């Protein structure tokens, strides 16, 4: 999600809110560059329903815009921990499973997760991990986890996602704490470790962390698995490692807001996306872990062998909603980044 798109959407989303039309339409509010145009076109062609695709650059942005109520969205794409908060605040509409026959294709390990224990509100879209990318031509020593990565000798050769909570979670798991243990005490423990790490980082980039790796500006990275998969697909010198200390998995979901005007169309779109041949299109473009087992059967052996797309996943360790503790993370990270830059 490059910043270009982010800034454009920042300006435009509020202004161009989908207007009601005579023809049936579906207001989709999703990550920028996460739903292939082919899927949207195919759906419109088949159903005659026009899709208005508005985008955002972060789950928080999505939530903020949804709550502001400027526009009614029929289908949204929240990250797991945002969905959890939304379910708790009754902002999502329960799904009508009878209208979603294709749910049967989904692998059970991606259902009934802590954010939606009964899978009553959400459908997993893609699953990802945050792991380490190594340019094996430049880094010869094995990198198994965060402790191997964040070493003085790799100073100024590392890119990490510009995501404060992510970075904090790495430190927490390295210290043997839970990544969701966001308390003042645990943050205080993590603080010195993060302070050391930040000094070694050259680039913080959530939008396209693969770019500095590709450009040769850095040799190591902690990035989204989808980004890593794209790197590996193009160049075998890159390797993907799930950190030994523990790693964060995320589930990007599809859900229907309680305020949806056209839940029927939203259900149709959901089921359409769950079709194996449609789901395959998404995997082709966004090589995250596809929870759709029938779709996986359609993928090439090469796609399935990509270690970033299909790492050996254990029990999914996802982020939970932390509410106002986000402010503590913000302050900690702002402070440490400022100090590290000196």
């Amino acid at each position, binding site marked *: 999600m490059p910043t270009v798109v982010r800034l454009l959407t*920042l300006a435009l989303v509020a202004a161009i809110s989908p207007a009601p039309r005579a023809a049936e339409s579906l207001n989709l509010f999703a990550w920028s560059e996460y739903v292939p145009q082919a899927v949207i076109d195919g759906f419109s062609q088949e159903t005659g329903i026009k899709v208005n695709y508005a985008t955002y650059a*972060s789950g928080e942005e999505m939530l903020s815009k949804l709550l502001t109520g400027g526009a009614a969205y029929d289908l949204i794409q929240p990250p797991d921990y945002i969905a959890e*908060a939304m379910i708790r605040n009754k902002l999502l509409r329960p799904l009508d499973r009878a209208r979603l026959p294709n749910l049967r294709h989904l692998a059970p390990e991606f259902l009934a997760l802590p954010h939606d224990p009964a899978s009553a509100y959400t459908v997993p879209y893609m699953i990802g991990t945050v792991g380490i990318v190594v340019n094996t031509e430049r880094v010869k020593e094995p990198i198994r986890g965060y402790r191997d990565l964040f070493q003085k000798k790799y100073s100024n050769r590392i890119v990490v996602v510009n995501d404060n909570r992510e970075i904090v979670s790495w430190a927490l798991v390295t210290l043997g704490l839970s990544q969701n243990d966001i308390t003042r005490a645990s943050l205080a423990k993590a603080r010195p470790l993060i302070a050391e790490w930040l000094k070694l980082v050259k680039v913080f*980039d959530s939008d396209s962390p693969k770019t500095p790796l590709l*450009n*040769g500006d850095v040799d190591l990275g902690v990035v989204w698995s989808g980004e890593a998969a794209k790197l590996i697909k193009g160049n075998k010198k890159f390797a993907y490692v799930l950190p030994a200390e523990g790693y964060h998995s995320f589930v990007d979901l599809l859900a229907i807001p309680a305020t949806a005007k056209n839940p029927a169309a939203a259900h149709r779109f959901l089921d359409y996306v769950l079709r194996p041949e449609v789901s395959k299109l998404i995997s082709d473009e966004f090589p995250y872990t596809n929870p759709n087992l029938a779709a996986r059967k359609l993928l090439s052996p090469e796609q399935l062998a990509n270690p970033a797309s299909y790492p050996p996943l254990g029990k999914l360790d996802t982020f939970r909603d932390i509410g106002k503790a986000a402010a503590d993370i913000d*302050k900690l990270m702002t402070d440490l980044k400022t100090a590290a*830059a000196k």
Partner: protein
Amino acid sequence: MTDLVQASPGTARLPRFTGWLLLAPLAVWLIAFVVAPALILVVYSFSERDELGRVVFTFTLENYRRAADPVYLAVFGRSVAYAAITTAICAVLAYPVAWTLARTRAPWRGRLLLLVMIPFWTSFLIRTYAWITILKSEGLLNGLLLYTHTIAAPLELLYTPGAVVLGLVYAYLPFMILPIYGSAEKLDPALIEAAHDLGCGPWQSFARVVLPLTRPGLAAGVMMVFVPAIGMFAISDLMGGARVPLIGNVIQDQFVGQARDKPFGAALAVIFMALFALLYWLWQRRTEGRVA
């Protein structure tokens, strides 16, 4: 005589009414896009937020208290420093350019001015990406230097504070050139001749005559560069690798980022606006003081 007296208020009222009518679009624009958003920010800044990040209207000074935390003061200070360095470099670079433009004759002057403005025809972000292409480790500049054997190993250019300043200077240079050009163009060349005639060398005539008389343009340029530069976040993200949080990044994070704390972001923004209002007021006072 009485006729005149009675007629005058009527004739006076008409232009006044038309005057207001003509001002109406401006007033509406100002209220809708300047006053109202500013007021909303002020109200937000004294509010709280709930766990979803929604604004809860109460009255609290907590956000301002938090803004005064050394962490955020340091960010403020750093942002001001970056903006100040950018402004200073812009001023030094823009002055000779603006001066040359103002002293160039008609057909060429227009062409050169166009060159100053051409970058605006392309999106700012695309231009910034172009710089990344130039500065990256395997980029054009390093490629050229390696090819000519000027350097042995690629220089670290991108994702450095220098790259951020370069990006800022590049983005805002025209905003410095144009107002200085405006002042320089109005400067009567005879004044410079007079200075020379009375014994000024080139440097003295600049310091004693040219600089004082183009100061309004320079001051306008400083405002037009310093103010947006201090709040810019995209350049520090893209060219600085987001290593240094600037105040613009922090505010952005409160509104659309993970921090999910609009009231705090609003408080930072209000402090920001107040700072500029103060700067502007000081500047105005100086300018008026000089004229009087």
